[in-house]
């Protein structure tokens, strides 16, 4: 079949990233031609500041060398500016007459620096700061001249000023605003920044309006003149007063432009569906993004449409900022100015050079501005992006993630302080140095890329926060504008919530229906999405959806927990932790008969038989004759109990019976993740109910219910939920909470994270305030569990493939 023709105008980061995404999913669909106005292959524009500052070289920031274009069979026209698009003949024409036909056209022309329209702007020595040529001109000027003036005290201007200063020039920053970086910082933080940069040797003129640039007799700039008549010497003037999307080419072809080339959520221009646009030249919902991560998101979406999958929508990004000036820590994101209708929490220590402002609106963090201490930037940004309700942590919010009571390594905001040799990812043994090196050398911007290249954070995920911080510190704020929603895996652009909603709305009951209806990119998913999809199907449509055993992890397929040597562990269910002499005898006999090497009492009051061969599993189950403990499943595992009023002289309630009742009511209950309960008979809480998904504590007047605790990687104390009078109520409320979690929790999301995401208030509204809703949830759960088989005995009904236990 003849390939279609794709032409990319603009050889920058956004356009080429789109090609990379496209080549990943549809490598053979197009003959690709690329036009680049610069004479260089695709490079990392963000790293021009480190190049100017002498921290990196131009070669180090090349993203795709010329050989890459060759390997991909891409026709590359470097140093050729496209000047015309003939939409009738579907052809682009460059300045030198080079032509290329297209079936699809991608415009990624980026933006140009805004040049102040003042007299003298065309003098020698007046440049913008945009590309490699500008950077080289600045580096060269620094070897010959003394005085530099940077016009513009924004992000780019300050980075340019810092670089020139490091190269030995005396630099004055001229800024029209009353404080520096007014689009990223408030006046307090801007003032701290100015002081700190002044200490390093930069000079500032704030509120200064440039009137003219004055040249010498050779036509080179020699001074800058202001509105008030004042002049300062300047051998080099760098204009960094903002950028303008490059829309001339598109506009001349009759494509609708306002703040940029107007595109829809599919990144198609609203004028011509054959023509796409991504990057700084594109205006999506009225915003032209100037940071890299949103552009990459756009590229991803654009690629899926170019590949004719017809899926994926770009819905905008939240962005954050970090200044790439070594030694200066500032971070801002969202609506950091605050104002009407919002509340501010401010911490200011001008002497120590630390200032923090958090802006809260409707109980959500909507903005953050940090100066001097930015270790919690990525955490605040996460809260902001996810729109998490912060009422429960509000009093500790200002003091950072490390102060909200976790002992795991996720929350420690210590990325900056770590040594290169310190281990970040314990699962895969990756240290900080390795991660930072990969980020720098391979130009990584997203968590996903770091996972792919270094394996860090790719297993248990407990170091994700730390890796995100490393990304922020290494790649700068540009990285962190991650999308509002995260795709489940590379097989789709849809998030967990999207998929779950679609399964419900479209009444999908099989994996194939999901792949087809939702346009999966892979024929049968992957090991990440399949277990999640399978869970969403069976939890959305109990007794209707087709369970697919091959889409479950081996533990659930074999109904036992796989161990490091490929053997399995078997944990029979002991209701509420109680057992009998008969059961113990049968267990002991099975241990002898099948030569099971280890018998261990678990942390959850059960007996674990470790080292069972797969071929023996069925017989071990049969011999011990006890129900499956589901100790392998994303399901209800244990209900830990104390002895309660039955034996304990302190006990106020019969916690053992309560535990047994809860376990009998909810065993076989599949959930997004493993679920553990505990019931204590009195507030001494011997069953440690405070760190369980549901913890019940008996008191004189009845029961207290706690939810969303966790004893795992990151210990979390459960929230007090409500007080209940009767055992029936405990069952009903617990069951309703579980059903809500089953319906709303994302696969592999523990209750603590689920409740953190939706907010405790939401759960209270659904369970405590809505009486009919609660009863309905409890009834739904009972319906789903009614008749669910025990996989250790009802093989057929539980779809246990017995062939797996035998070798052929």
């Amino acid at each position: 079949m003849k390939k279609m023709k794709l032409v990319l105008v603009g050889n920058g980061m956004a356009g080429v990233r789109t090609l990379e995404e496209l080549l990943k999913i549809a490598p053979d669909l197009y003959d690709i031609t690329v036009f680049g106005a610069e004479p260089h292959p695709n490079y990392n524009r963000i790293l021009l500041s480190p190049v100017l500052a002498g921290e990196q070289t131009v070669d180090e920031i090349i993203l795709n060398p010329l050989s890459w274009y060759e390997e991909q069979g891409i026709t590359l026209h470097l140093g050729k500016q496209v000047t015309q698009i003939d939409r009738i003949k579907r052809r682009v024409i460059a300045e030198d007459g080079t032509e290329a036909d297209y079936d699809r056209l991608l415009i990624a022309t980026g933006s140009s620096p805004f040049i102040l329209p003042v007299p003298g702007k065309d003098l020698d020595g007046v440049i913008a700061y945009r590309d490699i040529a500008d950077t080289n001109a600045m580096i060269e000027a620094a070897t010959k001249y003394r005085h530099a003036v940077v016009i513009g005290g924004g992000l780019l201007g300050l980075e340019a000023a810092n670089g020139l200063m490091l190269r030995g020039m005396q630099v004055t920053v001229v800024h029209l605003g009353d404080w520096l970086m007014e689009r990223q910082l408030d006046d307090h933080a801007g003032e701290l920044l100015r002081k700190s940069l002044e200490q390093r040797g930069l000079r500032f003129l704030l509120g200064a309006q440039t009137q003219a640039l004055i040249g010498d007799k050779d036509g080179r700039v020699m001074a800058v003149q202001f509105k008030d008549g004042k002049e300062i010497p300047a051998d080099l003037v760098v204009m960094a007063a903002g950028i303008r999307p490059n829309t001339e080419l598109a506009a001349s072809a009759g494509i609708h432009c306002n703040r940029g080339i107007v595109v829809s959520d599919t990144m198609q221009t609203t004028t011509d569906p054959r023509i796409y646009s991504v990057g700084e030249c594109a205006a999506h919902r009225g915003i032209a993004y100037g940071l890299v991560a949103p552009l990459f998101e756009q590229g991803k979406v654009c690629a899926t449409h170019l590949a004719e999958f017809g899926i994926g929508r770009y819905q905008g990004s939240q962005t954050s900022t970090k200044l790439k000036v070594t030694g200066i820590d500032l971070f801002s994101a969202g609506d950091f100015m605050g104002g009407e209708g919002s509340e501010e929490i401010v911490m200011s220590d001008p002497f120590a050079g630390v200032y923090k402002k958090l802006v809260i609106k409707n109980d959500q963090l909507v903005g953050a501005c940090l100066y001097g201490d930015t270790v919690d930037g990525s955490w605040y940004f996460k809260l902001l992006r996810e729109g998490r309700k912060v009422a429960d942590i509000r009093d500790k919010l200002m003091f950072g993630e490390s102060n909200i009571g976790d002992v795991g390594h996720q929350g420690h905001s210590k990325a900056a302080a770590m040594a290169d040799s310190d281990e970040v990812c314990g699962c895969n043994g990756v240290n900080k140095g390795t991660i930072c090196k990969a980020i720098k050398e391979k130009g990584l911007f997203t968590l996903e890329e770091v996972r792919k290249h270094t394996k860090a954070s790719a297993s248990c995920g407990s170091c994700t926060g730390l890796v995100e911080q490393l990304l922020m510190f290494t790649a700068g704020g540009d990285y962190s504008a991650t999308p509002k929603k995260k795709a489940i895996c590379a097989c789709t652009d849809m998030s967990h919530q999207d998929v779950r909603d679609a399964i419900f709305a479209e009444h999908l009951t099989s994996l194939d229906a999901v792949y087809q209806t939702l346009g999966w990119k892979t024929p049968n998913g992957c090991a990440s999405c399949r277990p999640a999809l399978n869970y969403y199907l069976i939890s959305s449509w109990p007794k209707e959806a087709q369970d697919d055993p091959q889409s479950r992890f081996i533990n659930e397929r074999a109904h036992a927990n796989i161990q490091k040597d490929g053997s399995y562990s078997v944990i029979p269910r002991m209701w509420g932790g109680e057992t009998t002499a008969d059961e113990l005898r049968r267990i002991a006999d099975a241990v002898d008969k099948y030569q099971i090497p280890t018998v261990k009492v678990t942390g959850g009051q059960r007996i674990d038989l470790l080292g069972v061969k797969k071929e023996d599993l069925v017989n071990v189950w049969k011999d011990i004759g006890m129900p499956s403990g589901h100790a392998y499943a994303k399901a209800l595992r244990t209900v830990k109990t104390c002895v309660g009023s039955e034996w304990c002289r302190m006990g106020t309630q019969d916690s053992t019976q309560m535990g047994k009742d809860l376990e009998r009511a909810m065993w076989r209950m599949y959930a997004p993740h493993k679920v553990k309960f505990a019931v204590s008979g009195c507030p001494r809480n011997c069953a440690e109910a405070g760190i369980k998904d549901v913890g019940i504590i008996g008191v004189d007047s009845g029961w207290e219910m706690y939810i969303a605790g966790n004893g795992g990687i990151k210990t979390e104390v459960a929230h007090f939920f409500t007080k209940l009078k009767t055992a029936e109520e405990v069952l009903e409320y617990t069951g309703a909470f579980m059903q809500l979690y089953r319906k709303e929790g994302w696969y592999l999301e523990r209750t603590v994270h689920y409740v953190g995401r939706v907010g405790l208030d939401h759960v209270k509204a659904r369970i405590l305030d809505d009486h009919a809703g609660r009863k309905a949830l409890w009834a739904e759960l009972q319906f789903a569990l009614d008749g669910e088989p025990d996989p250790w005995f009802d093989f057929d009904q539980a779809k246990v493939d017995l062939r797996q236990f035998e070798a052929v």
Partner: protein
Amino acid sequence: MSDWKTICAVADIPVLGARRVQRAQGPQVALFRTVDDQVFALLDRCPHKAGPLSQGIVFGKAVACPLHNWTIALDSGCAREPDEGATPTFTVRVEEGQVLLNQHELDTIAIELQPVKAGPCARAC
């Protein structure tokens, strides 16, 4: 040909699943079946920590190791980026719905590898 040994029917392997083949000696071999009924055979050992690949989730032409989620290509036995390593492959023939393996390969490939040990016995040694 006498060198080829009939192992089982394609239908005996679950779609997107695997079966283990017991050899006279040496670690077992894993047979995989893709969604379009292609059959592949690999040594049942992940190059990482010897996880039993036969117990992993099969997708496309790859399997995810059940222990630490390495992804191994079924046709080449190679681990996918960023992991490095390979699992020995066995030649598979499918004739009239039957899966055949080469007896010579079964007798020679990766015979000497010892299984991983776990449990108190392993600790004591």
